[in-house]
């Protein structure tokens, strides 16, 4: 029994959350530093996981398994495959930046009493989210996964509903109302999804007799456990619905713009870059692995929905007046790409989707955090309130531009690799869908460049004329992200090496081969 | 023969049951449907006494006595006291205020009763052995033996319950003075501020020939003033209006004068 590395990776932020919450009201700054240090330590642990993980080795590594609820065969089972490792690394990487970016977002208003401790709460909640997300990436027991999948909602709910933009912090009644609306919407959508999934989880238990992902998957693979076609399909739908809400897939997406629009930028990053990834990740790990036949059965519909998400999200992004909502709809479009790649059932598509999860996390984080800095300066989320920022704050504008370019997946930046892989992977099996999806890249260029043009270029508006450029803290947040974007865009090999084996496993789960190119087929 | 006796009771008891039972039911109905609380209380008392008789008939001598003493003697008296304290209120009227409540209630009652009877009907109550040997050593002794052995804990608990109830009753009824009593002056000022009825209420009773409490004082125009009599009497409709007494007296006077004049006419003739 070696050192439980995975448990430690998740336990550290969990304990950190408790410690941070316990910091007395007066020692606000201490709480911030504590949270930051904990998240950095978690990052170190994640790196250790990354190093200890052997791409060529078993499918699930660093496994841990303890009996938990013996009566129902629920076990505390952890294990990571390449995809899980990549996403854990992403999460652990982003959280410190989120914390740094939100450094002042939760400073208490002077109006409140001195015993009021929002700062501690804010950072504790972020760490709690990190812990749960990491655990849900690690859990190989369906029930265990379900628990964290749901528990994640609680801290997220408070983060969305409790902390607004400095622009209209709590004082503004209307903003507060919208915020609570967004938070409740987020909670309800995901709860409904989760409950349906719970039913499916129980159904799975009834059918399979235990919750262990590996055992069930093996049983499915070697035919000892065969489900009736309809049972499998129903269970699949139950799982998929929850993940599609989380992901979010059209038409279950409407909670995302509200949530991202109302939450502070760091929390928005937390939502779209970290929490939503659990949905797509779970599609890849649970849907495909547990219900391969049903997955194949549902593929056409899902692909069409994903396609709609891509185009529809992009078009709506063009139509937005609110910077954060625009990014949100852009994310919806990108999640469409991810889901499309997963269900294209080609190794290019799935590798692309996995890379896309990571790259989208980084690029959206970069764009959204810079947008957050912008908003915090001007105190408004409306695009129309900006103009000519590039003149007064060139560095801010430059980073914003790079973020935008990453969002429109310019070659040389990380998202391009993944997007192109997804497109190619889809195209080889479903040419029409692939071609239509390609329109997404034009629309992406449209909304990002329109956003940049309206906010950054043109004559300098008087309101922004005194806008300060990025401060050191903000540079510390943005620079590494951009560096990472460029590095992964030019040299994604380290990532693909980790991901590829896992993808091959998944492909073998669904018993799909890549379509052979015709020339070779002819030979 | 014996087992037949085991299944039936003596004719006398049957007679008693049918007569008193009827009365008991009537009493119960009266309890429910009498307008005034006092009457309900009395009817209930009657029903209880009859029940006491039934207890005795069923060989529960101790309970019968207790029923008379505790219930009819103590509890019902308590009820009467409270009725006296509260007096007559608008709540007394049998008019229903909640829509459909009465019909619902009657329906439920009817259905409930029928179901209950049905339940008793198809319950297998065939075994019937009187309290012969149970009461052999005396009913009270039997009870005592059981209470102090088998049911001693329940007994202790009920004791505790009684004490608690007593304390609770005291707590509830004892009015805690939160603010200091208003002085005469403050009361006066309050009255002036409210502006209604500055002087003290008018006294009841013109002419001291009656028990003046229940006679409204007359206003200058001869009509009775509501203010002069207490609310409870008014609601009970026990106020006597004497506003026409003066007229009656006048009539009597004239009559007598006529009689006298008439007699004098006869004398002069």
């Amino acid at each position: 029994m070696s050192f439980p590395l995975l448990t430690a990776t998740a336990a550290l932020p969990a304990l950190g959350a408790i410690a941070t919450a316990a910091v007395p009201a007066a020692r606000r700054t201490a709480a911030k530093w504590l949270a930051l240090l904990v998240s950095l330590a978690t990052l170190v642990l994640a790196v250790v996981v990354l190093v200890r993980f052997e791409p060529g080795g078993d499918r699930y590594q660093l496994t841990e398994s303890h009996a938990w609820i013996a009566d129902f065969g629920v076990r505390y089972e952890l294990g990571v495959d390449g995809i899980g490792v990549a996403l854990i690394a992403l999460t652990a990487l982003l959280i410190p930046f989120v914390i740094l970016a939100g450094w002042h977002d939760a400073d208490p208003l002077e109006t409140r009493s001195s015993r009021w401790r929002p700062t501690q709460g804010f950072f504790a909640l972020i760490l709690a989210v990190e812990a749960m997300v990491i655990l849900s990436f690690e859990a190989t027991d369906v029930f265990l996964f379900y628990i964290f999948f749901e528990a994640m909602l609680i801290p997220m709910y408070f983060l969305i509903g409790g902390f607004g933009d400095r622009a209209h912090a709590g004082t503004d009644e209307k903003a507060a109302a919208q915020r609570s609306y967004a938070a409740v919407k987020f909670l309800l959508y995901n709860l409904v999804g989760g409950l349906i999934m719970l039913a499916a989880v129980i159904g799975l238990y009834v059918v399979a007799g235990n919750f262990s992902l590996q055992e069930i998957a093996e049983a499915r693979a070697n035919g000892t456990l065969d489900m009736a076609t309809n049972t499998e399909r129903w269970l699949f739908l139950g799982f998929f619905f929850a993940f599609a809400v989380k992901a979010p897939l059209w038409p279950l997406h409407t909670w995302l713009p509200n949530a991202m629009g109302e939450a502070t930028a760091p929390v928005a990053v937390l939502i779209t870059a970290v929490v939503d990834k659990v949905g797509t990740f779970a599609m890849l790990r649970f849907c495909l692995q547990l219900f391969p036949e049903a997955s194949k059965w549902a593929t056409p519909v899902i692909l069409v929905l994903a396609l709609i998400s891509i185009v529809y999200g992009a078009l709506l992004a063009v139509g937005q007046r609110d910077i954060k909502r625009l990014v949100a709809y852009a994310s919806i479009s990108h999640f469409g790409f991810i889901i499309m790649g997963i269900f294209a059932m080609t190794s290019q598509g799935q590798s692309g989707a996995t890379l896309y999860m990571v790259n989208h996390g980084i690029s959206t984080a970069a764009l959204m955090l810079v947008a957050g800095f912008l908003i915090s300066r001007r105190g408004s989320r409306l695009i129309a309130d900006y103009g000519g920022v590039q003149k007064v704050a060139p560095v801010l504008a430059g980073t914003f531009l790079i973020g935008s370019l990453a969002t429109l997946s310019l070659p040389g930046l990380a998202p391009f690799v993944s997007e192109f892989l997804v497109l190619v992977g889809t195209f080889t099996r479903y040419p029409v869908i692939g071609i239509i999806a390609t329109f997404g890249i034009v629309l992406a260029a449209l909304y990002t460049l329109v956003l940049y043009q309206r906010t950054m270029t043109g004559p300098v508006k008087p309101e922004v004329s005194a806008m300060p450029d990025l401060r050191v803290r903000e540079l510390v947040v943005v620079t590494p992200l951009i560096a990472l974007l460029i590095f992964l865009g030019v040299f994604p090999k380290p990532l693909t090496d980790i991901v590829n084996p896992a993808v091959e496993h998944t492909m073998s789960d669904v018993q799909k081969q890549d379509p052979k190119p015709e020339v070779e087929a002819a030979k | 023969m014996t087992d037949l006796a085991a299944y039936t009771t003596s004719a006398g008891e049957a007679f008693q049951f049918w007569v008193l039972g009827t009365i008991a039911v009537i009493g119960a109905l009266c309890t429910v449907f009498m307008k005034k609380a006092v009457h309900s209380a009395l009817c209930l008392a009657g029903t209880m006494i009859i029940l006491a008789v039934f207890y005795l008939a069923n060989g529960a001598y101790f309970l019968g006595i207790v029923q008379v003493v505790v219930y009819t003697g103590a509890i019902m008296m308590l009820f009467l006291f409270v009725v006296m304290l509260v007096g007559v209120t608008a709540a007394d009227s049998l008019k229903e205020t909640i829509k459909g409540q009465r019909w619902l209630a009657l329906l439920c009652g009817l259905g409930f009763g029928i179901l209950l009877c049905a339940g008793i009907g198809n319950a297998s109550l065939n075994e019937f052995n009187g309290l012969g040997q149970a009461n052999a050593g005396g009913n009270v002794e039997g009870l005592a033996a059981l209470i102090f052995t088998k049911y001693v804990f329940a007994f202790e608990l009920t004791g505790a319950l009684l004490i608690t109830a007593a304390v609770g009753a005291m707590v509830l009824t004892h009015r805690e003075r939160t603010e200091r009593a208003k002085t005469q002056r403050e009361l006066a000022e309050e009255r002036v501020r409210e502006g209604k009825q500055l002087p003290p209420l008018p006294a009841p009773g013109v002419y001291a020939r009656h028990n003046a409490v229940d006679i409204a004082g007359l206003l200058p125009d001869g009509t009775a003033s509501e203010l002069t009599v207490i609310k409870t009497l008014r609601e009970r409709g026990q106020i006597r209006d004497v506003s026409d007494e003066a007229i009656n007296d006048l009539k009597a006077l004239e009559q007598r004068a006529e009689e006298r004049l008439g007699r004098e006419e006869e004398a002069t003739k």
Partner: protein
Amino acid sequence: MNPVNYLYLAALLFTIGATGVLIRRNAIVVFMCVELMLNACNLALVAFSRMHGNLDGQIIAFFTMVVAAAEVVVGLAIIVSLFRSRHSASVDDASLMKL
């Protein structure tokens, strides 16, 4: 006569009491009806004890009485304080349970 009739009588009284509870508004009368119901139960218990030929039924009836006594004390106290506070003994006036 079959002593089961006692049970029928008890049932009848109980039902009457219950109905009374439902249709009367004067708290005191409602209370009386409750007493009536309790007495009906006692009658049934006594009858049962006679049928089974042991005194347990009577014991229970006895306890019922004690409890009833306690309940009456507290209940009446409540009614009195209620009357003091809102000058009425109508159970409908205490309708604050409404949303």
